[in-house]
């Protein structure tokens, strides 16, 4: 099966902040392959290089060496992002627009015809349960509502690949459940989902495969069921062992 998302020996270095300091290597020779229809969990502790990898995939950051592809197209080409949806970790939207206007703006960027955009906006506002407040400025929304606007904008182009950066961070249990339902629904529609999360229980529930990175290096990759069977423990313990967590002795 063809890879929808692929990185080949990806390396990202950031310039030193101070003279005399070494360059910071955020990602070291990362090889990933995500196949069509998979829900893929991208895990790692803070500062492991998850967000940097996502930033390369989305074209925000250039790789120092190696390559990254979406649908076989080099991520440096804007067309590579035509069939993806992206939900950032926090809500970054034009707060003076209404949810409806924001979705219409993104629909226009994707070149959706007006009638299609109208229909899609209605569907998405209903899906994220914002249909009653869709004409209110986003600045008046609660954090959870803003996160749902984010989810709606990520789906505006009916993407084949959804990239979610910690989609449930800061959401209440109901909001998390809703996001999980949406991910499972997308999976049942044959969409590919690539997401990072610290909620390992959630990852275990929804993901087909996971990759765990630490200090920019890929430590493990495989099917969730296989990893759990192989290590005879849950994903959280596997994760903690891989990143070298040592329980502190209590004084």
């Amino acid at each position, binding site marked *: 099966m063809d890879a929808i998302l692929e990185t080949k020996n990806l390396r990202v270095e950031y310039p030193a902040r101070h003279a005399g300091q070494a360059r910071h290597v955020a990602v070291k020779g990362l090889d990933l392959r995500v196949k069509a229809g998979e829900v893929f969990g991208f895990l790692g502790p803070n500062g492991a290089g998850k967000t940097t990898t996502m930033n390369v995939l989305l074209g925000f950051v250039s790789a120092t060496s190696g390559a990254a592809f979406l649908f076989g197209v080099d991520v440096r080409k804007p067309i590579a992002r035509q069939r993806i949806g992206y939900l950032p970790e926090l809500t970054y939207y034009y707060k003076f627009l209404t949810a409806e206007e924001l979705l219409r703006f*993104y629909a226009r960027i994707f070149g959706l015809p007006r009638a299609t955009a109208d229909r899609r906006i209605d569907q998405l506002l209903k899906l994220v349960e914002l249909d009653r407040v869709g004409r209110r400025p986003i600045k008046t929304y609660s954090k959870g509502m803003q996160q749902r606007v984010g989810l709606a904008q990520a789906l505006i182009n009916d993407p084949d690949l959804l990239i979610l950066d910690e989609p449930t961070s800061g959401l209440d249990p109901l909001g998390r459940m809703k996001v999980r339902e949406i991910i499972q629904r997308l999976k049942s529609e044959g969409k590919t989902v690539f997401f990072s999360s610290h909620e390992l229980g959630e990852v275990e529930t929804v993901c087909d495969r996971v990759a765990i990175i630490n200090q920019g290096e890929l430590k493990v990759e495989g099917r969730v069921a296989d990893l759990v069977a192989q290590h005879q423990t849950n994903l959280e313990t596997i994760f903690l062992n891989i990143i070298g967590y040592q329980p502190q002795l209590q004084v």
Partner: protein
Amino acid sequence: MNTILALAGVVLKELYRRKDFYVLFVLTALLTLLMGSVNFFHDRNIVRYLREICLLLIWMSALVIAITTTARQLPAEREQRTIFPLLAKPVTRGQVLAGKFLGCWLACGVALLVFYAFLGVVSGARAGQWPVWQYLQVFWLHWVMLGIVVAFVLFGSLVFAAPSSNATISFVLVLGILYLGRYLNNIALQQPEPMRTVVYTVYFLIPHLEWYDVRDLLVYEKGLIGWVNCGLVTLYGAAYSGLLLFAAWLVFRRKRLNL
């Protein structure tokens, strides 16, 4: 083009949802109406003064709108991180820049239209004359000049760290060019070498914004400017705006986005 228009639409929405424009318009309107209602020294040419003051207010207000609106565009996108969901779509940095330029320039155009329509109605009602073509030329040249200013400030927003420093520097430079630009060649003649060459170089490098200041057309009820001259000055403005946008793109395409 769809992307650029969509981005421009967002800038326009931002303009009419913020209070800056309304405050400036109400101030201009109040001052103009106040001046217009007073008959200074029983002068029958009072409409001329009215126009002069109102045009000065329009020029200042338009500069404030153009510079402040443009200066905050790209820094706000980066600080509020709205640039990320945007660039995660099939959008290039060049399109973002073009959309911002078009949006700011159109926003200035809308503001200018409202200001000039107000001036036209007030002075027309008092003088009983409606020099529509003169108004159109003054409006058009003013708008082309604001295109250069918008491109310049957009470039500045990628070079200077803070929007406030960009706005201040842009204000000083634009006012400097408007009031001193035309005299630089005379100043150059009075300088010894190598200062003469330096000042001359500056004279030929700066965009001559003063060419677009044709307020006298309305104040002294002069005849129209030749349309060919109008066209040439428009081309000059377009070339300068294009050059500044190109420079901005060269900086923006390599710029880190504060991740």
